[in-house]
């Protein structure tokens, strides 16, 4: 499915190429990806019938789509309850105000449980925050060490050591440090959000740092000489010569980083009980009802689909920012 999509989507997006693409090829790629999906569904259904767990039979495609519909229904119902709650509060306040003009209405918060869609929203916000923070750190670091061989030699060992560290190893440290340092009576962000975000940042920093540094170091010597002959100031040199030249590599790094960020986030949420998709999976697992496995499978597919869409989003961003529109982007 992934492979087929990677072929098909750039073709559809390529504005300049659109005319040249033979329709036959487009139809063929689409047909092949459909075929792949259908074959997978059959295999899955067949395999699921033969797997019995303590929570009943492993969910097949039918059970999972039913659960997906259920989850959506629950979301709609929850929103309806929330609306009804606020309506009641409003009516109550209006009545009290009519009886007693000096009545001060108290703010009342609805305290329903977050639905599957809410959890997805939380996860997306967290991953975006962690990824943006990581990018803001990683790109400048990458540029600086890419420009200086000395700094690169000094920092590279650190990168190589921290790069393979699992989020699960960082998490306890992050949690303790955040509890100690992030003390506020009226916090703008919850601690769990800060924990997940920092863990995501620590884990997804490295591919961007490394790829940016490589991209910067590989900017053509001749272009660097042009810059030297012109005596361009450092900042102009970086902005006009180095950055545009390194953009493809920077984006390679960013896409790797975003993929890692998304994977790390789910694991971190699961372990730390931070709200989000990871917690949803964990809660369903602990819940252990006959529908749990189906609901977890919905989450698995949602996680995969969102990861795929995030990657496509980065690709679109790269297309928008890169000067070289003809470069093959995958």
């Amino acid at each position, binding site marked *: 499915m992934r492979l087929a999509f990677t072929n098909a989507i750039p073709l559809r997006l390529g504005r300049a190429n659109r005319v040249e693409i033979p329709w036959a090829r487009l139809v063929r790629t689409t047909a092949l990806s459909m075929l792949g999906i259908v074959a997978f569904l059959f295999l899955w259904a067949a395999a699921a019938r033969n797997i019995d767990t303590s929570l009943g039979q492993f969910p097949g495609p039918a059970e999972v789509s039913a659960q997906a519909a259920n989850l959506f229904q629950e979301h709609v119902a929850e929103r309806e309850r929330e609306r009804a709650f606020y309506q009641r509060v409003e009516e109550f306040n209006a009545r009290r105000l009519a009886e007693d003009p000096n009545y001060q209405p108290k703010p009342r918060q609805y305290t329903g449980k977050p639905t599957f869609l809410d959890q997805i929203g939380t996860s997306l916000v967290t991953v975006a925050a962690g990824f943006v923070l990581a990018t803001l750190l990683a790109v400048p670091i990458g540029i600086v060490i890419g420009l200086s061989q000395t700094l690169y030699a000094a920092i590279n060992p650190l990168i190589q050591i921290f790069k393979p560290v699992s989020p699960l190893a960082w998490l306890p440290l992050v949690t303790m440090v955040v509890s100690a340092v992030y003390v506020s009576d009226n916090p703008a962000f919850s601690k769990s959000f800060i924990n997940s975000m920092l863990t995501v940042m620590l884990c997804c920093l490295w591919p961007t740092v490394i790829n940016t540094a490589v991209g910067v170091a590989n900017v*053509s*010597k*001749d*272009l660097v*000489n*042009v810059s*030297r*002959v*012109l*005596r*361009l100031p450092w900042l*102009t040199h970086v902005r*006009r*010569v180095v950055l*545009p*030249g390194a953009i493809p590599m920077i984006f390679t790094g960013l896409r790797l980083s975003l993929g890692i960020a998304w994977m790390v986030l789910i694991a971190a949420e699961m372990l730390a009980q931070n709200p989000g998709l990871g917690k949803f999976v964990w809660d369903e697992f602990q819940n252990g009802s006959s529908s749990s496995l189906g609901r977890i499978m919905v989450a698995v597919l949602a996680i995969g689909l969102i990861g795929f869409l995030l990657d496509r989003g980065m690709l679109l961003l790269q297309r928008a920012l890169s*000067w*070289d529109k*003809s470069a093959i982007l995958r």
Partner: protein
Amino acid sequence: MTHLSIDHVSIEFPTPRGPFKALSDVNLKIERGEFVSLIGHSGCGKSTVLNIVAGLYQATEGGVLLEGREVNEPGPERAVVFQNHSLLPWLTAYQNVELAVKQVFRGRKSKAEMREWIEHNLMLVHMGHAMHKRPDEISGGMKQRVGIARALAMEPQVLLMDEPFGALDALTRAHLQDSLMEIHAELRNTVIMITHDVDEAVLLSDRIVMMTNGPAATVGEILEIDLPRPRDRVALAEDPRYNAYRQSVLRFLYEKQRKVEDLPKRAASRAAARAEQGGARSAG
């Protein structure tokens, strides 16, 4: 005072097998407005001389004086036209020239004057019609024209050209040589050009500096080209003086400084060329 003097320049590049002496005691005095070609076999260090004048390399011994001041870093008063044009591929022709003009004339020209100056230089190299195209949208010859426009726009005291037409086909090259002669007649820049094309050297130059083979290359002979300007390539083809000049350059290259082509020597010279490249990379 000499305009530009290359004074007893030697350069060594460090290699894993000890220092490699690429140039030894290169001496050259160039007058203002003079057009000088450097010619020699590949690997003889022509480009190294140019890069030292440009300030991109530092001479190990000796030095370069421009108007009596020592050259020790690159600068726009010694503009370089690179062999492979070296335009920034993400900028249009206009923007490439603009980058140079904005840097060189910052605070000295108004916005309108800069625009006029950029357009003037692009017109000079006959690129007025395609000034808003990016390098990947124009031909190799056009890219080289933009490279020349960028260098000219810096109003350099010396224009350094490193095999500027080496990568072009013969017709385009002839066309650009004619343009270059026109520009030189108009602006009277001092030009140092590297070439290994004998016709090009004789056609364009006031003097041809012939270099011996490396390692430890140096100036072998200097030939004054006393042909009236403007020069016309078709008329010159039958001029006996032109042919005599050609012949003496050819004699230098293929008799006095013939590349010895027996196998072990060739391997050695290739190793030396590699060493020079390696050294150049680490030096640059």
